[in-house]
């Protein structure tokens, strides 16, 4: 399985990669623009990502905008199955949470700091861990 970590902070990228690398082949990008590019490339290679961990506040293009564009691509091309996206962010205001699920069709939402048990609980809900 493949996962893409979208995170602008060095330490955050490192931690999430370590958490995921026992389950996924992990790629890392630093903002929404790179995330879109990686998403397109993975589909072009015929090896799409199974999971995206998406930060929201990032320079260039934020996570919500990137997710919106990814969903639009999936809709237009069309690409199936839709990639599962976990938002990993320090933002916990109601509008952002609701927007993530409604506009971005996020699969889950984790408020930073991301703990391994919380992340794995979400992965279990999404069916990546069966035990």
């Amino acid at each position, binding site marked *: 399985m493949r996962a893409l970590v979208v995170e602008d902070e060095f330490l955050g990228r490192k931690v999430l990669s370590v958490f995921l690398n026992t389950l996924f082949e992990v790629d890392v990008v630093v903002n929404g623009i790179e995330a879109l590019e990686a998403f397109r490339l993975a589909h072009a290679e015929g090896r799409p990502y199974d999971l995206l961990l998406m930060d929201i506040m990032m320079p260039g293009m934020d996570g919500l905008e990137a997710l919106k564009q990814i969903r639009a691509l999936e809709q237009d091309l069309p690409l199936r199955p839709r990639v599962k996206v976990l938002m990993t962010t320090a933002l916990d205001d109601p509008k952002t949470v*609701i927007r993530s*699920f*409604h506009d971005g*069709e996020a699969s889950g*939402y984790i408020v930073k700091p991301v703990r391994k048990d919380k992340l794995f609980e979400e992965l279990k809900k999404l069916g990546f861990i069966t035990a």
Partner: protein
Amino acid sequence: MSDALSEEFFAEVGDKYYPQVLEGLELLGAGDVGAGIEILARPLHTIKGVTGFMPGFEAASLLTHKVESFLKKLQAKTLPHSADNISLAAYGVNSVFAVIEQIRELGEPDQGEIDAVCEVLLAAAGGEKQANQGDGRACLTLEQDAAGAVVRVNSPRIHKKSQADQLVGAILGLPQTSPVVLDVSAVKSFGSGAWEDVAALAGMWTIRVRGLSGACRETFYAWDFDAVMSPVAECGADEIPTPGGISQ
């Protein structure tokens, strides 16, 4: 944060999702299943996600997940677009909103109701073949003890018409001269419709009910079925009610 999120969420549910859902249900009812589900998908996904993130709302998230899965099977046509399945989809969607309202008003959902909805959806989602097997499976056993003929209900949820028909059929096959004990010790929830079907026989058979508990008990008393079917615990050995529920 949680209170602010709840407030914002309830406002969105009322102002935005409910109208979308009504539109989706209308299309479902009109037979445009694909378009109906397409409209229902977004608000339901949002409700599932946000309630899963809000402490105390996990049950609503779980129920929404089950309803969403059922709708996806309808959309993928792995479930036939039968009138029963469409009704069930609408029932599931309405239940999501009922549960959210319960949590909002009472602080917690009616877990018995959630379990009952999930069970019905699960049975139907197992496909027509499995559903038919489920309908055909006996939900009761007949026994005889000192109290009289005992109809022991084995299924934990009695909500389907086929289950009520089984119960009615079993009682119809018993002599009217001796009391019938309906043993519901194993039943967690018993729909009011099923109670009504059984209660309709109370004028012709003396029906006593044993083992009432939980949501099953609540429905029984809430709908005043104790007026025609006496619970065994409240009925002494010499107080076997006559048909119609009047004690001898």
